[in-house]
């Protein structure tokens, strides 16, 4: 956080090197130092092979068998005044004969190789970490910018393009930063060392090697210019495609209702074709450069062998020198090649970096200070809004509202009415800080709205937009979103976790990320006027009742699941409720309405598959139709001689289905009744039936058997009424059920949770757990009666609150798409009410609701305001003008101006616009 507070930079550094230098100076210098430190050992590692060949192997310095050499003598030449001999001897060295010298030198070589390797390992690790940290910093920086963009900026950007930039495009940028300074120095150093070594051995050979490197250095960048352009194009086209993919997914309904899927296919085909040709050209050029590179690198050894060999033969250089030169040269192309690769990467990354940073720059970025986390409670509003000379125009310069002068005090209930484009919505958005003011100003509590911290407006002003934004998560998460302004209660870490947490925070600080902990409790209970979560749930129940969402959440709860190990108490209470529902069902009047699951009885209201499984499938292996072909299931069926009767049943079912339905066209509503066979399958069954006519069971092929047996799994006697299940067959199926459970292989044990009257089934819904049976087919008013009874039982066991809490865990899906639009809008209002704002703005927010529900909610909100002592303001932009009669003050807007302003009675008596709108 500290960094962007200090330098409130409007744009990121324009070059990747500046960016890297700005944030990683110290680390870069450190790793450079290490690189330099590694140079001497690198040089020695090159030198030793020559010494081995010349010394012990060729025998130079060992004229006789007994000759010895001093090894590892450490001495420096120093001025006379320090030592009379002119050398300072630290270690007099070891005296070794020829063989021992060979061993000593070889071992030294090995040690140097190891040291070199360790240096490389450390440097790579350090660079890698540096790069990862910079990637993290860069991404955070981009996200921070997204959070600070002016709202209007989002009209111009596509969300998936932003996502693709933050996620993919900056990835190589971060990776490169670790190499930004180190690699050129390291590789450059290595190349120079190798060059210097070659020069020392043979000046002319060195010159030749140097000359070829110089040609490479000049030629390659020229060839790369086009590569940069292509790289840029590739990035832009790929980003645009990501944007289009996002758009396509969002607007998929438009594609279907307009039959434009082929238009979209053509569009994507064109885009992909474009990307392909760019990439292909890129590859062609890249590989050409590579080819050239390799060629030049191979030309040098050719020269060495030819000329070096000639010199050696002429005796101008010794063979040891030539071997060393060639060994050194072997190491030269490596660094040079890498250096060229690095340069290539640098160009690539610089292009990407510039492309991304340009996109993340916007005029009018929100000052970072206005978004600083405020941990303490924010003071209540005192005055309210004051608008002076406010005008707002859209992008094209059309005036949306013009010269508005007004004050909206706390304690006022203001209704705004007017036609659709009269300016009411614009005014609402302006108060909600969502539109830039063109002229004039808005003040809140005597400060300019633009200069107020978001902590003030975000917490003390409630804003309900016409389209509520919901995030992926639970219903409760979305409802409580408005209370999560700053961490409230620190999470306690113990033991290992504590150290790990400290490390996490340290890393965050290192990379300029937020150091606030997402694992803290962020819910601001005080802001909702409660002390803890339990009270909050009660408060939520009140608010959801006001906005008409209680029964929805209750249904989510009944359809939700509870983990019995995590919530043992709740599971126990639900089991108690199951028993009390059961005792109520003993009454004759109700017993026919539900068939309870009984391990010792066949459940006639359930399918044959359900009867055998007698539980809930958890994983994937036994899900739906997969169960029907499960190998183990068929082993059990076979053991109980069920395949034959089931096959016969299947034949009969198919015959009936074809007799009844063959004349109907597919898609006919009657097929709904035929749950075991789809219209598409019918012709196949018809053919199979004809083929199998008169064929005995034993002669039927396996595939055919399976085809017909599969039908029977969906059979429910009371529903299909084909009279296929007699007591004998039911008893056989019941036995199969028992054996299925008894011999269940261990790999299937995780896939199923069996029905047990005495235990809670964590895989079934709360409702199914209470009911623990099936509502019977065809009992008049069965379902209504039973569900009513179920609710009574919930009340009786004081389970209502808890099932409600389960309902709050309902997953609303991406952007809340699993909720209806009315539910989303109500949730938006509830979210704003929950934080008890001093001023509530409702901007045509409940348009998806029918009129009576809207009136009900409005009345509840107005009554809620009356019940509170606090001085609360309400500003409601209404779609139905007549509802304005319930407010204290009415503003009538027309063509962006306030044309009438007063109490509803005054305005009605005036017989002006308002009166006309109401009538």
């Amino acid at each position, binding site marked *: 956080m500290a960094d962007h507070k200090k330098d409130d930079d409007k744009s990121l550094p324009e070059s990747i090197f500046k960016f890297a230098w700005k944030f990683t100076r110290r680390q870069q210098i450190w790793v450079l130092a290490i690189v330099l430190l590694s140079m001497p050992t690198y040089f020695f590692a090159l030198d030793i092979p020559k010494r081995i060949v010349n010394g012990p192997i060729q025998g130079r310095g060992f004229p006789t068998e007994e000759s010895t050499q001093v090894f590892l003598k450490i001495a420096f030449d120093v001025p006379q005044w320090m030592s009379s001999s002119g050398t300072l001897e630290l270690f007099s060295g070891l005296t070794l004969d020829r063989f021992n010298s060979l061993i000593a030198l070889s071992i030294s070589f090995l040690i140097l190789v190891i040291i070199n390797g360790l240096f490389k390992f450390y440097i790579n690790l350090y660079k890698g970490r540096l790069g990862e940290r910079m990637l993290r910093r860069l991404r955070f920086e981009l996200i921070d910018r997204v959070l600070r963009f002016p709202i209007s900026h989002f009209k111009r950007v596509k969300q998936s393009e932003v996502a693709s930039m933050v996620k993919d495009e900056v990835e190589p940028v971060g990776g490169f930063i670790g190499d930004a300074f180190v690699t050129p120095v390291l590789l450059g150093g290595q190349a120079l060392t190798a060059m210097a070594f070659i020069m020392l051995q043979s000046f002319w050979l060195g010159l030749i090697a140097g000359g070829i490197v110089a040609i490479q250095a000049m030629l390659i960048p020229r060839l790369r210019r086009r590569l940069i352009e292509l790289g840029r194009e590739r990035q832009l086209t790929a980003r645009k495609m990501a944007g289009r993919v996002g758009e396509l997914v969002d607007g998929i309904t438009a594609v279907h209702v307009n039959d434009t899927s082929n238009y979209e296919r053509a569009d994507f085909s064109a885009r992909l074709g474009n990307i392909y040709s760019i990439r292909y050209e890129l590859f062609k050029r890249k590989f050409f450069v590579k080819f050239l590179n390799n060629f030049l690198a191979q030309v040098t050894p050719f020269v060495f062998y030819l000329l070096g060999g000639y010199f050696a033969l002429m005796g101008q250089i010794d063979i040891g020198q030539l071997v060393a030169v060639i060994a050194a040269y072997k190491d030269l192309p490596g660094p040079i090649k890498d250096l060229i690769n690095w340069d290539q990467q640098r160009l690539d990354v610089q292009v990407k970096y510039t492309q991304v940073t340009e996109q993340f720059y916007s005029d009018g970025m929100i000052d970072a200070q206005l978004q600083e986390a405020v941990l303490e409670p924010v003071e209540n509003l005192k005055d309210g809004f004051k608008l002076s000379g406010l005008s707002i125009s859209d992008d094209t310069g059309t005036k949306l509202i013009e010269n508005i002068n007004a004050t909206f005090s706390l304690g006022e209930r203001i209704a705004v009415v007017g036609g659709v484009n009269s300016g009411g919505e614009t005014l609402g958005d302006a108060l909600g800080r969502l539109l830039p003011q063109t002229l004039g100003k808005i003040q809140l509590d005597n400060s300019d709205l633009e200069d107020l911290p978001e902590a003030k407006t975000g917490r003390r002003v409630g804003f309900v937009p016409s389209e509520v934004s919901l995030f992926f998560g639970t219903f409760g998460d979305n409802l409580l979103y408005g209370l999560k302004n700053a961490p409230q209660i620190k999470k306690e870490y113990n033991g290992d976790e504590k150290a790990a947490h400290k490390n996490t925070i340290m890393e965050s600080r290192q990379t300029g990320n937020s150091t606030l902990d997402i694992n803290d409790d962020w819910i601001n209970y005080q802001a909702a006027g409660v002390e803890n979560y339990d009270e909050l749930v009660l408060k939520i129940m009140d608010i959801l009742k006001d906005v008409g969402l209680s029964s929805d959440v209750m249904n989510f709860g009944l359809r939700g699941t509870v983990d019995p190990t995590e919530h043992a108490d709740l599971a126990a209470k639900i089991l108690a409720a199951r028993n009390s529902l059961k005792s109520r069902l003993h009454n004759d009047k109700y017993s026919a309405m539900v068939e309870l699951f009984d391990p010792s009885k066949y459940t006639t209201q359930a399918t044959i598959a359900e009867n055998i499984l007698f539980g809930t499938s958890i994983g994937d292996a036994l899900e739906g139709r997969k169960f029907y072909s499960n190998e183990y299931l068929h082993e059990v069926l076979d053991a109980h001689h069920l395949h034959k009767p089931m096959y016969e049943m299947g034949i009969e079912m198919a015959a*009936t289905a074809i007799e*009844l339905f063959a004349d109907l066209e597919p898609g006919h*509503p*009657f097929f709904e009744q035929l749950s075991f066979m789809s219209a598409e399958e019918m012709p196949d069954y018809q053919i199979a039936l004809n083929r199998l006519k008169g064929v005995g069971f034993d002669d039927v092929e396996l595939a055919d058997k399976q085809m017909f047996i599969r039908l029977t799994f969906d059979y429910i006697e009371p529903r299909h009424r084909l*009279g296929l299940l007699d007591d004998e067959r039911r008893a056989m199926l019941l036995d199969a059920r028992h054996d299925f459970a008894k011999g269940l292989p261990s790999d299937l044990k995780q896939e199923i949770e069996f029905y047990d009257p005495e235990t809670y089934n964590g895989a079934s819904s709360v409702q199914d757990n209470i009911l623990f049976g099936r509502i019977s*087919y*065809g009992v*008049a*008013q069965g379902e209504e009666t039973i569900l009513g009874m179920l609710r009574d039982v919930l009340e009786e066991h004081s389970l209502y609150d808890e099932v409600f809490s389960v309902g709050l865990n309902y997953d609303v899906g991406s952007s809340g798409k699993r909720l209806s639009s009315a539910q989303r809008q109500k949730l938006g209002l509830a979210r704003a009410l929950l934080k008890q704002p001093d001023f509530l703005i409702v901007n045509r927010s409940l348009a998806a609701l029918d009129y009576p529900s809207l009136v009900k909610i409005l009345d509840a909100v107005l009554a809620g305001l009356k019940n509170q002592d606090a001085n609360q303001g309400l500003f409601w932009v209404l779609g139905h003008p007549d509802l304005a009669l319930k407010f204290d003050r009415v503003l009538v807007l027309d063509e962006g101006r306030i044309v009438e302003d007063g109490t509803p009675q005054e305005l009605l008596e005036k017989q002006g616009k308002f009166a006309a709108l109401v009538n």
Partner: protein
Amino acid sequence: MVSINEEVELLRRVPLFAQLEPAKLKLLAFTSQRMTFQVGQELCHQGDTGDAAYVIISGEADILIDQNGKEIVVAQVGENAVIGEIAVLCEVPRTATVRASSPLQALKIDKEHFLRMIREFPDMGIEVMRELADRLTTTTAELSQARGQLEAANC
């Protein structure tokens, strides 16, 4: 438990469906729902919009008409009786309340399904028409008879 074939036998005894070929009757039976009613439960309520017709399989029901807030039993029906077919054919509210006077089983024929069958199998439409025309003839005959009696009484 009565199976679908027995339901078909039953439907055949209902004059409205008597002339239909068995396969169509079976389809009608298959796509309709078997319902059980307790004593006191209503099959339909006077004034409601009709969404289904019923054929009583077993048991008995009272037909009641609301007169100035008082319910009067106008008739009793039992096995094979068809209830509510008029409301299914045309958009009129239920003309009477039908309430089970004993435990009752009925085949509930969905309005949509019924109309769909008539549309798809014109023979069935003709049968229904014939049956209704029969009833109209009877009613007309009864009416003129009643009128005659009324006139005779007036003379």
